[in-house]
């Protein structure tokens, strides 16, 4: 039976992993992710979930265990954040390179130094090129739905890539919201039993996984991953629609979500929970007769170039909010990529909310005002103290 619980984002993710019937969880606790794996540990201890729980000594080991488990052909899950994600770095490439459908929750948090446990997107943005699909959820409901969808996407024969679902640390992880929890059987029917065709352990079928890739073949393996990323765009859109038909919820077209885009000549582009704040500002401006739109990028990888180009073709003022900074280029990663996507168009970039700095309604209004007055694309840090 579908029910509504008032829960945090991390609990929503844990429930989603349980509904997805994961068989191996390997994890190491790190703020602000800890509650997610605590809840999963409790599920297993209480006999609600039949899974192996591997208490790893670090995130590097947690991902290594997930890779090993996934290579035997079972559904695996882990969760991490910030320094933990950075510690997994080399393992992330291996999961993607071996084409293992590992699913992970990343609770976005700033990187040291100075030590900061609060939210920004620098951790997952830094893992942009590892070959992982990245989904950025806006709220706790989307967190739950995205984890379930992530297995459907990752295990698709056209994709076979690991997926990380990114949620904003504390803003979602520690805030309770009403979340619709789908019926367990419905989710199991939807996902089905995981039956890997290419990578699984079978004594009657000895295989070598993770062999040496000499110069004669390595480049081809990279091209295959690149092609799989392209194919993933279609799969993510399809999964979004299928999910809507069964569970009655969808998020834009799966890759991007437009909000009040029609007739808006000023559009903000952003990812994650700040989109909720932006939508609120858009609604209040609309009452004053002003039309501002939002384009929410849901999947940062694969990057929905074509959709963004199409949706912003009439837009004159494009402002991109980044909760990360590419040091030495003085722009955020999303800003750089939107600029490259909309070649020649004015794109302003706003660096916001680093290390948990609040992004207020006034900040969003300030951004919109600056964007409308600015002649050229420029980068502006918002909310800095004098």
């Amino acid at each position, binding site marked *: 039976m579908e029910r509504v619980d008032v829960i945090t984002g991390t609990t929503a993710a844990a429930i989603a992993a349980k509904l997805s019937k994961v068989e191996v969880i390997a994890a190491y606790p790190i703020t602000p992710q800890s509650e997610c794996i605590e809840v999963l540990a409790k599920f297993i201890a209480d006999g609600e979930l039949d899974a192996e729980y591997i208490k790893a000594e670090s995130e590097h080991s947690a991902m290594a265990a997930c890779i090993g488990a996934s290579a035997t052909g079972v559904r695996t899950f882990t969760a991490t954040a910030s320094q933990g994600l950075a510690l997994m770095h080399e393992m992330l490439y291996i999961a993607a390179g071996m084409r293992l459908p590992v699913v992970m929750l990343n609770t976005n948090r700033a990187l040291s130094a100075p030590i900061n446990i609060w939210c920004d997107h620098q951790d997952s943005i830094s893992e942009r090129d590892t070959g992982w699909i990245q989904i950025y959820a806006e709220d706790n409901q989307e967190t739950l739905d995205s984890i379930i969808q992530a297995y459907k996407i990752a295990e698709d024969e056209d994709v076979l890539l690991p997926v990380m679902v990114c949620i904003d640390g504390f803003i979602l992880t520690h805030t309770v919201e009403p979340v619709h929890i789908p019926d367990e059987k419905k989710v199991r029917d939807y996902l089905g039993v995981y039956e890997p065709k*290419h990578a699984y352990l079978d004594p009657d079928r000895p295989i070598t996984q993770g062999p040496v890739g000499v110069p004669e073949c390595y480049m081809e393996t990279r091209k295959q991953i690149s092609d799989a990323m392209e194919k993933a765009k279609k799969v993510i859109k399809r999964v979004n629609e299928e999910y809507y038909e069964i569970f009655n919820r969808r998020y834009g077209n799966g890759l991007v979500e437009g909000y009040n885009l029609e007739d808006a000549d000023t559009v903000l582009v952003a990812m994650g929970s700040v989109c909720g704040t932006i939508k609120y500002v858009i609604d209040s401006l609309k009452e004053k007769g002003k039309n501002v739109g939002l384009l929410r990028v849901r999947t940062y990888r694969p990057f929905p170039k074509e959709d963004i180009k199409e949706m912003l073709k009439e837009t004159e003022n494009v402002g991109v909010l980044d909760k990360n900074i590419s040091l030495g280029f003085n722009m955020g990663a999303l800003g750089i990529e939107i600029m490259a996507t909309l070649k020649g168009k004015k794109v302003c970039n706003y660096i916001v909310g680093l290390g948990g700095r609040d992004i207020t309604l006034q900040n969003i209004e300030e951004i919109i005002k600056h964007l409308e007055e600015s002649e050229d694309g420029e980068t502006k840090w918002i909310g800095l103290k004098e």
Partner: protein
Amino acid sequence: MVTIGAIIYEPGNTTRNKTGNWRTFRPILNTEKCVKCEICYIFCPEGAIYEDENENFRINYDYCKGCLICSKECPTNAITKVREEK
């Protein structure tokens, strides 16, 4: 054709996939100087030296990676090197 995830489904497929193509120096065995002591055969880390039907030692360049241990160990200096040309 590389499989998805570069998985090897067929054991022993290096009989088809050659691995000796990153050589910088190519060892050359002079069969006249060779006394068939088998030291090169024993020391070759790749198993790329073999004895042919006439009991002469030969180097299989499909797998020789050019480490030149054979040349270093040969007591009669029967194995010399030339730079590999591509």
